[in-house]
């Protein structure tokens, strides 16, 4: 599993061990990991467990890491694998369909008129330089806010799809929904996310 994921840096003796025994560093790292895990698992207890296990795994092999960055990359890689396993194998982990936004009026942003065409104010504008936004730290805060704004089931399948890069079949299996339900959720998530990003980030970059 995660233990096989090693970053390319040349391992140097010792000092990572001291990072992991530094309570401030450790607490900070744990908090970041937990946020990451909760976002994807939507279950605090499971997220805590996954983080705990990932940290224990890291401590066992910590001697080979020198730089904090390398250590963190590696710890997060372990965590990501644990989350993936949980998502894949704990099928009862969430009943997306039951708490689904499929029946939720809010779920489909009312961006279309009754005939199914864009409302004037909701019609997507062209995004200027979407790729360059990636280099702006402020953009990531906007992105996070937009993600958290997704209804839970939409957010979860979206992250499984686009963050963890599971394919549709795997997602359908692990959350026990049909492909067409998944596609509905992803469509809605994308509509919502793009609207949020355009409203809060790309709005001033409209290219005519």
């Amino acid at each position, binding site marked *: 599993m995660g233990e096989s994921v090693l970053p390319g840096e040349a391992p140097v003796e010792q000092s990572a061990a001291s990072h992991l025994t530094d309570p401030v560093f450790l607490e*900070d*790292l744990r908090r*970041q990991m937990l946020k*990451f895990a909760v976002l994807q698992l939507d279950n605090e207890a499971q997220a805590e467990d996954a983080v705990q296990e990932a940290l224990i795994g890291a401590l066992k092999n910590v001697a080979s890491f020198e730089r*904090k*960055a390398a250590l*963190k*990359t590696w710890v*997060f*890689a372990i965590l*990501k694998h644990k989350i993936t396993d949980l998502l894949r194998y704990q099928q009862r982990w969430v009943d997306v369909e039951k708490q689904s936004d499929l029946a939720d009026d809010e779920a489909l942003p009312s961006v*279309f008129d009754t*005939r*199914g*065409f*864009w409302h004037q104010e909701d*019609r*997507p*504008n*062209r*995004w*200027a330089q*979407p*790729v360059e*936004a*990636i*280099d*702006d*730290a*402020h953009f*990531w805060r906007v*992105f996070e806010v937009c993600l958290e704004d997704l209804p839970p089931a939409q957010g979860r399948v*979206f*992250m499984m*799809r*686009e*963050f*963890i*890069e599971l394919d*549709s079949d795997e997602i359908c299996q692990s959350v026990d929904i049909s*492909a067409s339900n*998944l*596609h509905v959720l*992803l*469509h809605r998530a*994308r*509509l919502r*996310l*793009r609207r949020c*990003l*355009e409203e809060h*980030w*790309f*709005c*001033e*970059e409209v290219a005519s």
Partner: protein
Amino acid sequence: MMNCEQATRLMSDGRERDLSLRERAAIKIHTLMCDGCSNFNAQIHDISQISRRYAKEREGQEDQANTGPKGDGTPG
């Protein structure tokens, strides 16, 4: 002709499964006449790239996080 809701749905589905020739043709025709959906199609691709980058950064960003934003946060 398809409406925008159907067109965006097909575009989204296109990231999940192979579309038929007919479906692809329908999208093509729709986007020729609809800038909004054409932009949507580009944006879901951008969002996918952005998301993957985000997931990557979450794993290893923390050392950079302290350096603060590179820009001033003002788009454009």
